[in-house]
């Protein structure tokens, strides 16, 4: 498992952060997603052999938010 921080755009309230975190239920290989509306970012723990960054970014897009940059 590795841990990465991503900037997320389009969150309007803490409930948006909850929706971003819901990708941990959707994709295999994701350990934990911790999104913050206040910081406008998400911290993801994931297994690179099971899920790619592109798949994660797409999953976040599906729930309505844009992963703008990777820190």
């Amino acid at each position, binding site marked *: 498992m590795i841990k990465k921080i991503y900037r997320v755009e389009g969150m309007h*309230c*803490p409930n*948006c952060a*909850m929706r971003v975190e819901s990708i941990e*239920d959707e994709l295999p290989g994701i350990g934990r997603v911790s999104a*913050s*509306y*206040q910081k406008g970012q998400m911290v993801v723990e994931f297994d690179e052999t099971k899920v790619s960054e592109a798949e994660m970014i797409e999953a976040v897009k599906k729930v*309505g938010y844009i992963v703008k940059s990777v820190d």
Partner: protein
Amino acid sequence: MGMEQLILAFVTGLTTGGLSCMAVQGGLLASSLARQLEQDVFRSSESKIGKRMPPQLALPIALFLLAKLAAYTILGFFLGWLGSLLTLSANLQAILLVAIGIFMVGNALRMFNIHPIFRYFVVEPPKFITRAIRRTSKNTDFFTPLFLGVLTVLIPCGVTQAMMAVALGTGSAVAGAVLMFAFTLGTSPVFFAAAYFTMQLGRRLEKWFMRFVAVVVLVLGLVSINSGLNLAGSRLAIQNLFQVAQAESELGAAYPANDGTLTLRAENNGYSPSQLYAPADTSLTLNVVTSETYSCSRAFVIPALRVQVLLPETGVVPIEIPAQPAGTVMQFTCSMGMYTGEIVFGQ
């Protein structure tokens, strides 16, 4: 405690309590609904179907009121049990009102998207709670209305405070809980109807609606800060600034009677006269008169003297005012800072 007292508590809530509480606690409910509306408006704007879904207002209002009902029932339990704690001190309530006002103004600025710093004004529930909520109920935000409903316990309106005093007087945890339950249940229909129809009407404003809600939250926040300033006896409160400007031309101003007493009427819509004149360097008695008064003007506060009295619905309560130097302006207010007035000490 008899059934009559419970029915009276319920009817008091249903009539004066609901509107009085809405005026004081409506801001917290508006903040709660604002969150729900933000989600709904955003969700429908991203929907490819193109149909606007009606915001789910009934559920958050119901959750808010349920949390409020539970919180006040528990409060009634403790009040009846302790039997000694009367009300929050005026100073603490003033600080709470200002703090809640700043919280609301910050939230309004966040909704206007003025600067990301205002995102810190929103209450982010702990991660273990959001995780639990997400897994049990997807897409529904239960936390905010529940949390804010519980918070109303910190800003009881005048009528609620009166009922809290009655709960204290029961001297029984169960009786206190049942009394507060009956009263808060009584306030709920008016609270629900006022909140629901206000928000439904606002929905028609379509794309401007979020800004409309932000403006409402902003105004309620400023009102809350102003009430806190009033309660603290600050000259910066709007009413006090206004009173200074019209001080000399006040028609309803009153002077002491021959026996050195001043009379102030606490009425349902405020204090009359709002300005009293008294001689300097002489102690006097202020008789506060109520006559079928049910509003929060019954919770009478003189911040400078740390006087905090719950007036009877009908009666006269004398308050001793020590001698004051010439030029002193002594503020008085209801415990929520909604109604105010002052005593001016002259030669």
